[in-house]
């Protein structure tokens, strides 16, 4: 029925099956939207946040999905600025994932504020000293960039592409995409960092506070670095999941392995920096405030945060995946790769969790004890909302847009040789123009 919209030369499931899947996701989405509307109409009393937990689940989700969505900017950076051509086969998907992550993050922020109708004050009445201002500005502008990067993909839909204006627009945007991508990378470096700065500048909160240079605490750089490191892992993870779901190979192994290799080295360097940071913080910064590492990671009443979470974050979610990814075996072995990228994502989520929730759980005044908090269903529903939304957007995009350039080649449809032929022809043309060279094993 919708075959006219589906890209040529690829196979998609039946529309009925597709709609069933979409409505399943839609149901989850609807619950989230209902919870979101409740929060807007009745206020934040719908959550279980409190005066001690001014930030909670949402802000963690926000930080986490932005970190995971970091794949878009870093892959874009590698593809357009550094010029690693193989990555063109995954950049579309990275952009789509980034778009989903960032739009979700903005939505969550819009729910999270107590006065959504005054939300624009953050732009209009900006306080440049606030990390949150920087976050808001860069986030919004970078989201605009991601939208710009995503638009040509949409325009490449078989139907839309036939409209000359859109066809031309898409073409023009492709032409100067490097400029947008560069701007995006610039913005992204800053807002990933400023998200780290959010916790790092809190000199009243020893758990989050970090020394640094000028106005930037170390967490500023660590956040950027970690997002760049783990973002591609998340892109790979989602690609792998998509492959599992569609039961097709969508991206060639060499592309994945290349990205995994870069990610691995990034992760390794990050984790070394993180260890140094932790050491300096634990043995220099904190003692100056009269605190020890043991007080941060304690089994005191009310605290669920023992050393285990540090171990989870740094060793299991950092060192282990880094070591797997830097070895060729780790990258090429399917199971090892799966483990590594999953652990890396868990590691970064743990890091963001710690910087938001453990930070707030820890009492600073000596006569207070650890604060506890458990999110309400409205918070959980609105946090799952982006997952459902992401699944829907990915599904629609995958079905109707040429997201994976290598899909046709990797999944030839028997009996449709003509189609394959054109694919080959196009690829030849690309080779000839030197514009978009296909990925080959030798390129690495």
């Amino acid at each position, binding site marked *: 029925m919708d075959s006219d919209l589906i890209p040529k030369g690829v196979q998609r499931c039946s529309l009925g099956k597709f709609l069933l899947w979409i409505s399943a996701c839609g149901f989850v989405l609807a619950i989230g939207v209902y919870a979101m509307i409740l929060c807007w109409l009745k*206020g*934040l*009393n719908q959550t279980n*946040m*409190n*005066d*001690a*937990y*001014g*930030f909670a689940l949402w802000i963690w989700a926000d930080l986490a999905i932005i970190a995971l969505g970091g794949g878009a900017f870093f892959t874009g950076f590698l593809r357009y600025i550094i010029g690693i051509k193989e990555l063109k086969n995954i950049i579309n998907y990275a952009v789509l994932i980034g778009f989903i992550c960032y739009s979700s993050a903005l939505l969550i922020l819009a729910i*999270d*504020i*107590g*006065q*959504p109708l*005054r*939300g624009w*004050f*953050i732009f209009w*009445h*900006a*306080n440049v*000293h*606030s*990390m*949150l*201002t920087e976050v*808001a500005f860069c986030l919004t502008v970078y989201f605009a960039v991601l939208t710009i990067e995503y638009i040509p993909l949409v325009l490449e839909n078989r139907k839309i592409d036939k409209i000359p204006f859109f066809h031309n627009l898409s073409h023009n945007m492709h032409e100067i995409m490097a400029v947008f991508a560069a701007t995006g990378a610039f913005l992204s470096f800053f807002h990933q960092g400023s998200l780290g700065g*959010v916790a790092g*500048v*809190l*000199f*009243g*909160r*020893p758990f989050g506070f970090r020394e640094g240079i000028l106005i930037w605490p170390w967490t500023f750089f660590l956040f950027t670095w970690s997002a760049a490191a783990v973002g591609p892992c998340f892109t790979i993870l989602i690609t792998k999941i998509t492959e599992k779901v569609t039961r097709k190979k969508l991206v060639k192994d060499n592309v994945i392995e290349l990205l995994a290799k870069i990610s691995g080295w990034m992760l390794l360097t990050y984790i070394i920096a993180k260890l140094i940071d932790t050491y300096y913080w634990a043995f220099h910064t904190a*003692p*100056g*405030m*009269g*605190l*020890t590492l043991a*007080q941060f990671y304690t089994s005191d009443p009310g605290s669920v945060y023992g050393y285990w979470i540090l171990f989870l974050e740094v060793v299991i979610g950092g060192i282990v995946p880094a070591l797997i990814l830097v070895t060729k075996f780790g990258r090429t072995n399917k199971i090892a790769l799966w483990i590594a990228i999953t652990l890396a994502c868990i590691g970064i989520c743990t890091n963001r969790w710690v910087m938001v929730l453990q*930070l*707030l759980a820890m009492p*600073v*005044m*000596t*006569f*207070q004890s650890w*604060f506890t908090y458990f999110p309400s269903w409205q918070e959980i529903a609105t946090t799952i909302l982006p997952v459902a939304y992401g699944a829907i957007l990915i599904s629609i995009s995958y079905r109707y847009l040429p997201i994976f350039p290598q899909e046709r080649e990797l999944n030839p449809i028997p009996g449709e040789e003509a189609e394959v032929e054109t694919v080959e022809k196009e690829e030849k043309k690309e080779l000839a123009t030197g514009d978009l060279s296909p990925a080959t094993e030798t390129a690495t």
Partner: protein
Amino acid sequence: MEKGHNTTFKRYGMVIDLDKCTGCGACMVACMQENNVPFKKDETDKIRSITWIRVYKLNNGKPYPDTEICYLPRPCQHCSGMGDHGHSPCVSVCPATATDYGMDTGIVSQIYTRCFGCRYCMVACPYHVRHFNWWDPVWPEGMENYLSPNVSVRMRGVVEKCSFCYHRYQLARERAFVQGRKDIEEHEYQTACTQACPAKAITFGDLINPAHAVYELKNSPNAFQLLERLQTYPKVYYLSDRLWVRMAGDNYLEEEKREMAQAKIKR
């Protein structure tokens, strides 16, 4: 800091004598009445209960019968931030400039109509002086009649905190203007909690004006501030002749605690 003393520049602050404070809560109620603080049917969930000044119960951590307790009232500390530049933990983080620090009074303001409820300031404040209006403020029928016009009622979704009863400063100044004066006297501007305290444990005034009572009091060897090691430079000082109470004011490493105890013995 001292050079700043003249008729226009002030550093309003408080000295609270913890040995006098009985933990009766009159300051809290006087504050709530003065500042139109709302209340709900159930206020026992203390981390969702708005009180601009809160009285904490401290104990020395020793078992029966060596237990000691002490009450510590905690208004907004009106931090001046590192180097007295006014960049208190909360002021610098507010993305919409809804909280501000006036160099003329040293008071940290909170503007409810500007605040859009991101709560970053609450996260930044280690003293938990900031409260969020999780609910619409609702008064039982008839009770809205006692609301004071001097302080605006806060709407749902914004952060509020102690203002050192700034409106009293404004009203005192108006009176002074009408009487042809440019400046106000110490007794003309006192916070509601100071005025109410039945034990007279709270002293309020200009910390850099030698004529004000707080000037001397804050220099007492028994004076301390909350979390001063974080370099927040709070303007609320506490007095106690008990070492454990003074030590409860900040985080200390074990060896630092030992040193302090030894220093006390020597003294």
